[in-house]
């Protein structure tokens, strides 16, 4: 829906050249002006003057965007005989461009009937000697734009059903309602995970905290597949996004845990390590489902996780008897998990802090002792006794001395009120025996709500949700603070002002209700990680073809293993996630986490892998090339169309190339704007209407068939794959 409010920048016709043009535009105009004089007519030769730019602002629903996009401007003009060619610059989320013209700059401009618009090029055969041209853009509605942002950031990309439910269906709930529901996942009935039987099946294999792990429990491939499937199917999408964020923030490495619990057999030790990873996920899920769940809660889950205690060498760190504690966890706790690199600590702090963690251990205990950190070790050989590996406190390892951390340090002035100047020294008294465990909790309680942590974690969440250009280190007192800095500050204030402090929902709510998130400040600015790319590919084509949402009825599906890797021949080293840059779930070797930003993922080789994945997914089952991405990523574009096109008003036809192309463009590129997809539309129509050798072969003349290998099916699949291999589908 668009309102026409015109803001015209129109100088007098005689001063066209004095428009405030950038040097680049002046360059183009100079060419167009050869032979032209302001204000004069030149007989049969049309003189073109470009000039005004009209932007149509949308209706009342728009909040004030911080920086409106640059209006479209005409960039080149040329004229050959009586044919005028005009090119203008793109405009984000544009629904429609129109060219208006007038013979007199003072007269009303009307839609130019004598021209054709293709992409950003307008061609006119212009009989009259002088014409003025205007470019008019109708942007997408703010609700549609926000909806597409939310479906890409608070979810692993849209599904056709979600687009209808939120934006285009008979009674759409609207973007804001979607955001509100996703912020409160406990209010959503999680029926999505019923749409694939593997989720319940694999979930049943997961070992709980007091379960003795046996060879029938989940292995790491099971966990990866389960995690991917939940990302594909869950209705609580934002919860799944945040769980992956937590997993990638508090990095642990499955294979290192597996090595630690050795001696019980290679299969079971790997499954015990899987249990450690699953329990992190499970406990974080509980925190995020709690409306007042805090960052401290998430941090505690990580610190108490046997996987973390093993991964960063706390488990071998001994501080008693003059021994030097291992600094690995202390360093990364500050550098990567709370404060951020060089943000309020130095080497001395790391060294002192490392002593607090001595004694945090992982031990095999009796089942009854699964939650007793002071339990003694289960007697007998670890290879044969029956027990549970759990977080345990080993008093003999603990450094019992008092410790003072951040001695004499105060919060720097750049943080501004209410934190600047605060002393944040932490004093820990002498603690002996089992009391020693409290050292670690004192540290967690202290670190979790320091302004450094607030800043760093807010920055990380902003990078997840808005765009990549956030970094810690802002001067929050600077009156010229950027919009990004201001958003981080607002997050920090939301963190500080809660009771308890650091409620995740308060910070997330601040971000998703900010101007930066809701506008072109965030739309399309990020690139999908391999997990986001693979999962969003399946989701983009996924609907229940018979409306029941029962497993096996979907037009696009995966078994999870086909994305993250199984055991056996399609193992994790061959899986798409690995091929696209080694994004091996739950098993990263370095604690900084997989990159969130694009340069870590986008290179020629990984792009080729992404394109191969898409093509392999779209190839019909049984056809050559299907196995490249595992045989179990299956799609039926025809099934999707047959479920959706007949319900359109008026009903679409699966033989009508325009209907088909428009449907996919609307679901795959919901936030781009119809007018910006003109060139993709032309390319897709051309794809549908030509055979493999490039000769004309009208799509409407093909026999509709879902049979693998049929001309229609291959043609349709090829076109959908083509759209998914375009650059825009890499973006989030």
């Amino acid at each position: 829906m668009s309102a026409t409010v015109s803001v015209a920048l129109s100088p007098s016709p005689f001063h066209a050249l004095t428009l405030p043009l950038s040097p680049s535009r002046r360059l183009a105009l100079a060419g167009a002006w050869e032979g032209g004089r302001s204000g004069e007519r030149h007989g049969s030769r049309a003189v073109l003057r470009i000039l005004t730019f009209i932007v149509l602002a949308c209706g009342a629903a728009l909040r004030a965007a911080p920086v409106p996009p640059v209006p479209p401007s005409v960039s080149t003009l040329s004229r050959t005989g009586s044919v005028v060619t005009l090119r203008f610059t793109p405009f984000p989320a544009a629904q429609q461009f129109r060219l208006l013209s007038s013979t007199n700059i003072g007269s009303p401009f009307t839609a130019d009937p004598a021209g054709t618009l293709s992409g950003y090029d307008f061609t006119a055969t212009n009989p009259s000697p002088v014409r003025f041209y205007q470019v008019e853009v109708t942007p997408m509605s703010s609700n549609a734009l926000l909806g597409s942002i939310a479906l890409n950031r608070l979810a692993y990309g849209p599904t056709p059903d979600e687009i209808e439910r939120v934006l285009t269906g008979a009674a759409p709930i609207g973007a804001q309602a979607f955001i509100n529901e996703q912020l409160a996942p406990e209010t959503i009935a999680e029926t999505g995970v019923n749409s694939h039987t593997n989720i319940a099946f694999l979930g049943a294999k997961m070992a709980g905290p007091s379960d003795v792990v046996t060879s029938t429990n989940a292995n790491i491939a099971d966990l990866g597949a389960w995690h991917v499937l939940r990302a594909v199917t869950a209705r609580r999408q934002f919860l799944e996004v945040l769980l992956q964020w937590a997993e990638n923030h508090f990095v642990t490495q499955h294979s290192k845990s597996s090595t630690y619990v050795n001696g019980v057999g290679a299969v079971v030790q790997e499954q015990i390590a899987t249990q450690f990873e699953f329990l992190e996920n499970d406990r974080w899920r509980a925190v995020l489902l709690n409306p007042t769940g805090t960052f401290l809660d998430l941090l505690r889950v990580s610190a108490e996780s046997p996987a973390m205690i093993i991964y960063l060498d706390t488990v071998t760190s001994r501080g008693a008897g003059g021994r030097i504690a291992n600094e690995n966890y202390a360093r990364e706790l500050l550098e990567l998990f709370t404060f951020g690199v060089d943000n309020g600590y130095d080497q001395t702090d790391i060294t002192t802090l490392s002593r607090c963690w001595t004694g945090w251990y992982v031990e095999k205990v009796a089942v009854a002792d699964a939650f007793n950190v002071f339990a003694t070790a289960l007697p007998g050989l670890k290879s044969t006794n029956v027990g549970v590996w759990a977080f345990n406190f080993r008093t003999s390892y603990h450094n019992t001395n008092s410790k003072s951390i951040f001695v004499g340090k105060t919060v720097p002035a750049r943080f501004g009120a209410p934190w600047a100047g605060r002393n944040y020294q932490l004093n820990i008294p002498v603690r002996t025996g089992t009391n020693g465990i409290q050292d670690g909790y004192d540290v967690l309680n202290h670190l979790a709500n320091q302004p450094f942590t607030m800043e760093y974690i807010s920055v990380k969440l902003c990078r997840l949700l808005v765009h990549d250009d956030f970094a810690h280190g802002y001067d929050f007192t600077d009156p010229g603070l950027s919009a990004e800095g201001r958003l981080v500050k607002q997050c920090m204030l939301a963190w500080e002002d809660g009771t308890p402090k650091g409620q995740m929902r308060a910070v997330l709510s601040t971000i998703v209700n900010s101007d930066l998130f809701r506008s072109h400040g965030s739309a399309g600015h990020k690139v999908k990680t391999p997990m986001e790319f693979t999962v969003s590919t399946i989701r983009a084509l996924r609907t229940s073809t018979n409306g029941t949402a029962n497993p096996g009825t979907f037009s696009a599906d995966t078994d999870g293993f086909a994305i993250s890797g199984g055991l056996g021949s399609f193992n994790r080293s061959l899986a798409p996630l690995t091929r696209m840059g080694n994004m091996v779930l739950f098993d990263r070797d370095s604690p900084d986490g997989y990159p969130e930003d694009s340069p870590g993922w986008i290179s020629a080789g990984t792009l080729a892998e992404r394109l191969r994945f898409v093509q392999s997914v779209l190839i019909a089952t049984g056809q050559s090339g299907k196995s490249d991405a595992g045989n179990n990523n299956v799609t039926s574009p025809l099934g999707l169309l047959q479920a959706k096109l007949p319900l359109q008003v008026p009903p679409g036809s699966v033989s009508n190339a325009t209907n088909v192309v428009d449907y996919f463009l609307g679901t795959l590129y919901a936030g781009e704007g119809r007018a910006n997809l003109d060139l993709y539309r032309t390319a897709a129509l051309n794809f549908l209407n030509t055979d493999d050798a490039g000769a004309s072969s009208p799509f409407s003349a093909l026999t509709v068939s879902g049979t693998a290998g049929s001309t229609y099916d291959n043609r349709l699949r090829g076109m959908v794959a083509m759209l998914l291999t375009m650059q825009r589908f890499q973006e989030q």
Partner: protein
Amino acid sequence: MNTPNIITRRSFLDRSVKLGALGALAALTDIPFVVKRALAEGNIGGNGKKLLFIWLRGGNDVLSSIIPVQDPAYNASNRPTTVIPKDGLTDYSVGNIPCDFPVNSNAAAATFSYNSAIRLGNGFAALHPSLKFLAPVYNAGDLAVIHRVGYPRQSRSHFDSQNYWENGAPNNNFEKEGIFYRTMLEAIQQNTAKSTGLTGVTLQTALPLILRGSQAAMTNLTDPLRYDLLGIPNTSTNANAKAFGAVTNAAPFAFPDKLNRQLLSLQYANMTSTLQIFAAIDFTENGNTFLDDTALDGESAPYHLFPTTSAKNGGYAMHGNDTNKYVVPSNSAALFSNLKAAALILNRTDAIVAGTEFGGFDTHSAQGGATGAHANLQRQVAWALYSLRKFFRIYGKGGAQEMAGAQIGWNDLVIVTLSEFGRTTIENNSTGTDHAEGGGMLVAGGAVKGYGKPGATTGVFGCHTSDSVPWVNGPAGAAPANATGSMFGISNRYLKRAYDYRSVLGRIIRQHLGATQTQLNRIIPGYANESQEHLLSGGTVASPIESGSTTTAIMGEPDLLV
């Protein structure tokens, strides 16, 4: 940056958003080639010289690789499990001689089981026994071994330190573009590169920072054997062409600007333009028929140069599948597959810089001494340099079995290893070492000024008491808390640097690749600040480059190229 978006060829000319570039680029493309060359600055890519870099991720323990065996502080008290003992029959104080082993030692302990320090022949330094295959490279004068390499205010964080080694701007976390990217960009902008689409190439999981930049795309191959598209249906080559054509044709479609659109466009264009180039090279295992020209250690036949399988790993297959006859550990297949691909790419395409990486050097625990984790890594390093030298001497330009289309010979190539820091002088409680300061670099190539080359009596730099910034010996026995000497030069714990890594890379970029000093000042900004950084000619680095009152004497560029 105000420099015009040269980017890749014409694909950007249609983008009206980049109108500023249009005018400038139009001006450049109309100049005749001859005139362009005369105007060009530097000769990067035009002089036929190439570079291969190998990242040793994790911080290689240089004290256990290039061993200061004559320093009394290098002993079993400080390094109980990682120390490499001297060979009791060798005089390590003799200088001006080649690297040799075993000398008068137990003849039964033939080279395969030699486990003492290998005399490097400069009178002070030795090699870890697992680096024995560096000896022929060293003795041919083709290896420079550089010790005590670091940078000011050295970080002990892997991520930061690796970033600084790659972006060339120590302690600057905001510089997101790499040294070799800037080097290649100079070649592109000055039109000395033979191909703008293929300049820098890596073979690893992601494009490293050292080749990243905003105005031109460098290529990273994750798996050269999978570097093509499938097409639907896959059985029809026409379908593949149709799919590929659709991707290529969509490349110049204009779109409103977003933060990552330029990166995506550059990398898409890079992919489509290089897909065809690499299709012509045989990266397969069947094509891995590259053999040494000498039989080593009394074997009956030469070894394969690239041990990508067990059968091609040293003498394994020759001795009835004997794993004791591996030249590299059995988990080296990926590394040598990548090195082979890098070598083929440098030899057969216009690429100027190629690189790869491997990890495992972060030996915080169970590092091992003559054998063990560290030793296995050194075996890979040594065989890599040995085999690359042989590959280019035999199969490169002018070689006895010159490949079709070979572009370079061994004299045209320089190989350099990078590692983000060295490790602690004193072992920790977990029989390993922790992050420290000064590390090492290896530079190999036909153009290297190593032992025996005119004007050089040694290939060792930075590891002698007579250096201009001398190696200062430490105390014998267990080091006290306030120990002095080079190995305790920082915080009484860490080896202090005497070279800056930028000086080493700068020397190579200027003298080998053909950059002008002006270009180098842009590529490595520290060079433009010689009075404080002293990268070119050496000097004493002080505040503000160093922190507080710290001063460090460094030796400037080592004279490592002929």
